[in-house]
């Protein structure tokens, strides 16, 4: 729970703030990765995610009671991404390059194959795998049934396996 003391120069008084902070620290990267994959635009994803967390902080007493605050955040981020960016900013066709240290080697083909999945399958992978949402939460976020989530995830993984098959 937190409350904002607006009568004293806008100074924030955050009581029990660690609960939000813990949530923020725990969820920021998974949420960002999911929104990044869903939008395929690093800058948009970053902006949308920070915006969503800002809104969550604003009403943390409500959001913390949500069945899945992480799902709430992702939904807000995706809503705002849709509304906030002009469409001339095309999606990136390749996953962004980032400098990484101390990382176990990964298969760049897998990263690229996931990045290039059809939108709806990519979204399911983003929400189910990267954000670790349940099938029900993913279904609610995407406006489809839990069964459809399972089917799309199955197809997505099947597609990836088919593409990567010779490499494994």
């Amino acid at each position, binding site marked *: 729970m937190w409350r904002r003391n607006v009568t004293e120069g806008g100074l924030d008084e955050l009581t029990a703030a660690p609960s939000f902070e813990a949530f923020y620290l725990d969820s920021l990267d998974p949420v960002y990765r999911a929104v990044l994959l869903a939008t395929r635009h690093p800058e948009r994803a970053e902006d949308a995610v920070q915006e969503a967390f800002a809104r969550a902080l604003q009403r943390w007493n409500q959001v913390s009671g949500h069945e*899945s605050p992480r799902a709430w955040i992702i939904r807000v981020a995706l809503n705002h991404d849709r509304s906030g960016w002009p469409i001339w900013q095309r999606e990136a066709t390749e996953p962004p390059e980032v400098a990484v240290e101390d990382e176990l080697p990964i298969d760049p083909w897998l990263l690229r194959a996931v990045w290039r999945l059809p939108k709806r399958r990519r979204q399911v992978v983003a929400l189910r*795998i990267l954000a670790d949402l349940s099938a029900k939460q993913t279904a609610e976020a995407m406006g489809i049934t839990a069964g459809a989530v399972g089917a799309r995830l199955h197809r997505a*993984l099947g597609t990836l396996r088919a593409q990567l098959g010779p490499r494994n």
Partner: protein
Amino acid sequence: MNDEQLSTDIERAFGRYRARRLSTDSLGSATGKLQAAQPSVVARHRLVGGLSIGGVAVALVAASLLALGLGPWGGAPASAWAPWQPTPTKADPAAALKARDLCPTSMSMGGDKPIPGWSTPIDNLPLLAQDQRGPVALLLFGSTSQGSELVDCLVWHDGESWTVFGSGGQLVLDQIPDMPLWIMGGGQEADAAGGRYVTIFGHTDASRVVIALAGRPQMEATVQNGMFLAWWPGDTQADSVTAYAQDGAVIATETLGMPGHGGGAPSAQASPAS
């Protein structure tokens, strides 16, 4: 490789991506802006224009009309898009009622009535404009007052049931500049089935607003309550938006140019006609 192993590998592959961590104070500052009814971080992108760039009152979001060319009618259900016409038809009051029920659900988690991240339930927002074309209506809720929240949503009545194609989301309205024509929002949208459509809305002092679409006949926007509003199926680019006074004189034109293939700023111009 089984599903579990593949999922683990995907998770690991994307583990390289990390978001910039802000302090709680920084996030709190952002929420402070929201509480003060200023445009949100994202809404600022949408509303950027004369308000924030030295008097050049052109919303960059004008370029949200620059739909990227695929099929002329996208994957839209033909039964919904077929009756579309370039001139608005009589508004169906039932569409507004249904939109209040259905649109928040389409945007929220678990059918919660309030839109996540937004403070005003759609029930509390007046209907600002409705662009009806046959059985499909684009609705805009909110007001033209500074700080008003705006929500747009497209609904279809097939004769028996209602379908929400989706919403462009919400934005907080900053001060409307003293211009006869100001594009505020819109963009290319897609429904769950992959059907595509383009929306546009904004402020106008005109009595008539005409939109020129690339390679297609021009179309009339709905003008209502100081706003103009229009939608069309597919993802055809809008070439220009022209505002007309009651006597037929052109009072403003915004020319929308497709940016370079690599993206970049649009060549939108807002200029009172001479």
